[in-house]
């Protein structure tokens, strides 16, 4: 892995940023400050960060209901994200979206999505347009293990394959679709094998190892940009919290939870950085502190922002 120090620390900072953003969002929701559903990305940070580190601003992603991590990793503005969670006029979508539909088309975030599996075919369309316009770019479609059982997964992979489009399908296998364990919702263990059915190379990686994810994504992205078509990457991971805030998680085995918490991608990468002399603990602590400050600033920004006006209900239904 030939990443320079700056890039390595960048990976670390982004993972910490996601973690701190999510912990703050959780605290705000439990404190009654946020409405709606909140699906936290804690534990899965290495995937969004490892993948998006290979993308530029013109490359695109489609995201899921668990989208905050993807958006931050792709360069999303946390002030606007936090304002959106608060339903403020200054939020990414002027308060229309909340947590589940955040997008920033200027930097290739085509959108989070409340419908499981909806992002995959949309990614195929974005890739189609990229080729149509002779752009040298790629689309990443993030989705979960549960989503891999929807028809849209199969249709999108097949279509991307036959049209040879620049899509990287990134499956975040956190081993549950809501409460349903992977072993109950599908018989395969490695979702990457499903690529075979569509003649798409499939690869399984440790989703809690940011460098492993980075490398797999680097290969898939360069394949796509070289006109060699789509890839499927499965990242094995675990969500630290429930499906959404308020989920009592009766379905999680405490032993498994413990095992996975010990594989938390952030301390794990911190250890690597220190061992390989990329940074000292003090430097990593400083990164965390500065991230925390930015998150606090985002909350202030959000909470001091104006609400939308009642008449804004009617705006943006149709293009003028």
């Amino acid at each position, binding site marked *: 892995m030939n990443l320079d120090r700056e890039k390595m620390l960048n990976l670390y900072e982004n993972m910490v940023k996601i973690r701190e953003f999510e912990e703050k969002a959780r605290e705000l929701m439990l404190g009654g400050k946020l409405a709606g*559903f909140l699906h936290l990305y804690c534990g899965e940070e290495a995937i969004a960060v490892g993948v998006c580190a290979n993308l530029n601003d013109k490359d695109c992603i489609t995201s899921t209901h668990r989208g905050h991590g993807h958006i931050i990793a792709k360069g999303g503005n946390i002030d606007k994200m936090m304002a959106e969670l608060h339903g403020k006029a200054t939020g990414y979508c002027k308060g229309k979206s909340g947590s589940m539909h955040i997008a920033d088309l200027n930097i290739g975030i085509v959108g989070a999505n409340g419908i499981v599996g909806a992002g995959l075919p949309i990614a195929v369309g974005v890739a189609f347009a990229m080729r149509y316009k002779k752009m040298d770019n790629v689309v990443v479609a993030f989705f979960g293990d549960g989503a891999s059982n929807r028809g849209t997964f199969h249709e999108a992979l097949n279509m991307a394959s036959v049209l040879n489009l620049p899509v990287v399908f990134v499956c975040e296998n956190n081993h549950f679709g809501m409460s349903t364990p992977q072993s109950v919702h599908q018989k395969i263990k490695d979702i990457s094998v499903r690529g075979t059915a569509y003649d798409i190379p499939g690869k399984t990686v440790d989703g809690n190892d940011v460098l492993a994810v980075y490398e797999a994504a680097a290969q898939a992205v360069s394949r796509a940009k070289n006109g060699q078509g789509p890839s499927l990457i499965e990242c094995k991971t675990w969500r630290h919290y429930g499906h959404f805030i308020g989920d009592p998680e009766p379905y999680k085995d405490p032993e498994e939870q413990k095992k996975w918490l010990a594989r938390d991608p952030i301390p794990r990468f911190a250890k690597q950085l220190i061992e390989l002399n990329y940074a000292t603990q003090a430097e990593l602590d400083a990164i965390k502190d500065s991230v925390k400050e930015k998150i606090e600033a985002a909350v202030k920004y959000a909470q001091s922002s104006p609400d939308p006006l009642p008449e804004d209900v009617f705006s943006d239904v149709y293009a003028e």
Partner: protein
Amino acid sequence: MAKMSYIEAIKETQRAEMQRDPNVFIAGEDVGVMGSAFGQTAGLLKEFGPQRVVDTPISESAIIGLGVGAAAMGLRPILVIDFIDFMAVCMDEVLNQASKLRYMLGGQVKIPLVIRTQIGAGIGAAAQHSQSLEAFFTHMPGMKTVAAATPADIKGLLTAAIRDDNPVMFIEHKTLARLEGDVPEGDYVIPIGKADIKRKGSDVTILSWSAMVHKCLAAAESLAQEGINAEVIDIRSLVPLDKECILNSLGKTGRLVIVHEAVETSGYGAEIAAMVADQGFDLLDAPIKRVAAPFTPVPFSPVLEKEWVVSEEKIIDAVKSLF
């Protein structure tokens, strides 16, 4: 009578029907181990086992398709699609299969399935988790559509839906989950197609279904203090529609306000208004009023959502505009 919540009524009714008829089973996402997100099927897996309470993959087309096939074979599936918004991804199985098979096959099969799903805004769930799409299913000959506003109606209507030999859309409302009410004990069936007069009155008929019924009742109480005595009809069944109940009420009141949470354009209120204009024109002393959501998706921001959802005040204003 037993006191129970809306959610408990859903759970207990399914339990009772599963005990009564071994052909009744439940299939859907997270209905088993988790007992559904709000506990609508809690404990049923333990009682009836995994053959009758099936935790499915996230494969909505296959869930409804499974129900159609199983129903054609004589079973009585209860299929759970948590939010009505997700019905969009399995519409073929509902529209072109479940609702039409019997007719297309010249009456050779019955498709006695129930699809349990929730509508409704009000919890900040935004545009893809808050819609009221019940009207979609009223545009499908062969399909029945019912909506329950109280725990008692849950029991009576869900029992009827499960025992019905036709596909039935069973519409729940997510904001009613904790609503408590008296529920009749023993066998209790509300015939599908029977409206319920939830408040008697003589000056104006306010007609609604699902959660909006409660706002209509609250509006009626306020109106009573101003001397307007409103009758509130909960139609409970959209298809078939209890036209007789509606026309009888108009015979007394001469005024009709239709209230629903769905967007006004092509909402089911339009169908009811057209029916009344056609069959009850002579009964009317004033134009028919509709109170419904504006023609926009449901916004997230609590400020906007509150503006979007029909309020008691809007109902009151609509009623007063007729006098």
